[in-house]
């Protein structure tokens, strides 16, 4: 086996997983301007819903995926309408919205624990293994990498080439000015949460198949996704995806020489370095104060 190739592939697969999380997280942040940490809860919910539809209820695999994605998008809308919108009406600050998102994260994790139990779950699939330049990669891992890139392209096209994307960018730039040209910010936020939560559902499905399902999975993944987004740029989906791949590679190459218990430490050291020296991220634009 080509060890170096396998190591890089391991890093790319990890990075793709983080990118799946970071893309939706970054999209929501770029439009709504607050950190929706409950994005991790939607991801976990997506994974557990997939498990319920495909394993417990025994539905057709593709039908299970479709239902999961619909439910995930719906979950995002419910969160926005019931919690965030009410806080926005009261002119709540970004900090308050952040606290609310952490509270939602905790609530949904507890509900997952209560409903599905604490024991680890797996989604059984047929998962052939392929040789690639002397390394080994499974079909699920290939799909994760391909989907993360496709999602990136899809989101880019959405934001650049569609009317909705232009409206989202307008609201992200200046909500008040966007209103003057007839854009309804609340409607844009709803669409943002639908799309972002749909992406969380995709992430939950793929990660649930690749790894185990456990109630706290959303929290640990959203932290990694957040870290990747900070490295690349919190307000830029391409940046968040790039940062996530960098994180995945640095972690896996790092634990080649260090004990694997240092994996999270490597991630947080990288986070601190970027927060200190490049807080706007690799693809972020530095804004000079005049």
């Amino acid at each position, binding site marked *: 086996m080509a060890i170096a190739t396998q190591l890089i592939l391991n890093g790319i697969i990890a990075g793709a997983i983080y990118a799946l999380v970071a893309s939706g997280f970054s999209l929501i942040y770029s439009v709504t301007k607050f950190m929706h940490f409950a994005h991790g809860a939607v991801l976990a919910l997506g994974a557990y819903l997939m498990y319920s539809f495909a394993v417990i209820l025994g539905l057709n695999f593709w039908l299970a995926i479709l239902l999961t994605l619909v439910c995930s998008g719906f979950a995002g809308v419910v969160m926005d309408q019931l919690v965030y919108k009410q806080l926005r009406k009261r002119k709540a600050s970004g900090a308050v919205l952040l606290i609310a998102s952490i509270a939602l994260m905790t609530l949904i994790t507890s509900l997952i624990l209560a409903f599905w139990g604490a024991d*680890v779950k797996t989604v059984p699939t047929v998962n052939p293994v392929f040789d690639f330049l002397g390394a*080994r990669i499974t079909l699920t891992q290939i799909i994760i990498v391909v989907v993360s890139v496709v999602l990136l392209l899809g989101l880019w096209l959405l934001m650049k080439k569609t009317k909705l994307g232009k409206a989202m960018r307008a609201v992200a730039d200046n909500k008040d000015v966007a209103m003057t040209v007839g854009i309804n910010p609340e409607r844009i936020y709803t669409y943002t949460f639908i799309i972002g939560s749909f992406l969380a559902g995709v992430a939950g499905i793929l990660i649930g198949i690749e*790894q185990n399902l*456990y109630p706290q999975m959303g929290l640990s993944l959203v932290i990694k996704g957040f870290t990747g987004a900070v490295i690349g740029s919190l307000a830029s989906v391409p940046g968040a995806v790039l940062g996530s791949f960098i994180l995945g590679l640095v972690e896996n190459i790092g634990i080649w020489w260090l004990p694997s*218990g240092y994996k999270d430490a490597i991630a947080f050291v990288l986070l601190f370095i970027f927060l200190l020296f490049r807080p706007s991220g690799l693809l972020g634009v530095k804004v000079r104060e005049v």
Partner: protein
Amino acid sequence: MKQFIALIAFLFLSACVQVEQSESIKIGAVLPLSGWGAYWGSPEQKGIALAVDEIRAQGGKIEVIIEDSKTGAKDAATAGSKLINIDKVQGIISEFAAPSSSISPMSVESRIPVIYDALSKKILSENPYALKVYFDSEKECYVATKYLAQKGYKVIGGVILNLDFSPECKRGMDKTAGENEIAVKYYDFDADTTDFKTIITKMQNDKIESVVFIGYEDHALIFFKQRSDLGFIVPVFTGTSKADTFTDKVISESPKESLEGTITYDQKIREGFVQKMNARHPEITDPDLFAAATGYDEIMYLYRGLSKCSGKSAECVVSAIMSDKDYQSALETEGFGADRVMHLIPSYSTYSKGELIPLEVE
């Protein structure tokens, strides 16, 4: 005057009730009812319930107050504090090293005996009122490494969960390495590890010939799956028991080629207890029986020790438990030794063509 007599009578009766209630032995149980350890805590409750029913059926007075440690030190500490300071328990049972470690200082300060169930012996050296149940990490890792060395494997990898017992396991493996002139390399991981690919890649690079795996069910699920994906099929000997690691879920959900030849061990349970549990809980499985038997024995030993030492010191209770050779435990053991450990007797097996076959291991 009548009111005064009624008041005196009421106070007298209340005092009588208090005295009668205080004769009931109160034991606190800090169990992992949620979190990753719930697979152990939930069935253990059934064993505890059986013990309580049997004690009461024989006229004994016992109350067991159960709190959820959520398999974590912080919640265990909160639970332990409540049991000691509010519920005024006379003894505590606790599960897993981290939660038990957080209760141990309270046990020392309050002079309350605690029986804990974990691989690590570290608490015993810090707490004179602690007794330990469960396998011995150092011994089991020594046995596993020695077995593999005797089979001719010269480079053995220790894939070890970073918890209290991991230094003890490494001591056992290093001891075998010294005796058998083999190389042992360690690959530590944390409890929240969900990806073993790079660890496995490192082992392939290091030409590891066999593995001693120390981890729990969720880690085993990922490890066996990913080693199959990466084509790293070398013999594995689990340094943690079947109930923890090589569970029925791991066996049913992992790629079969990855499981072939895996060696694990389990604890023998007395047939009488098995029959009693099956009668109450027909659905109970073998791994759950182990947890139930552990809970049952912990309550029985603690109750018997507290009964012999009513009103006396924690030292008396510990001594009474260690010298209690009349009680026939649900777990097949010889009781507590002078080291305050109830050594379990493992029975080894190997996975072959879909079954676990008994294996003789020295």
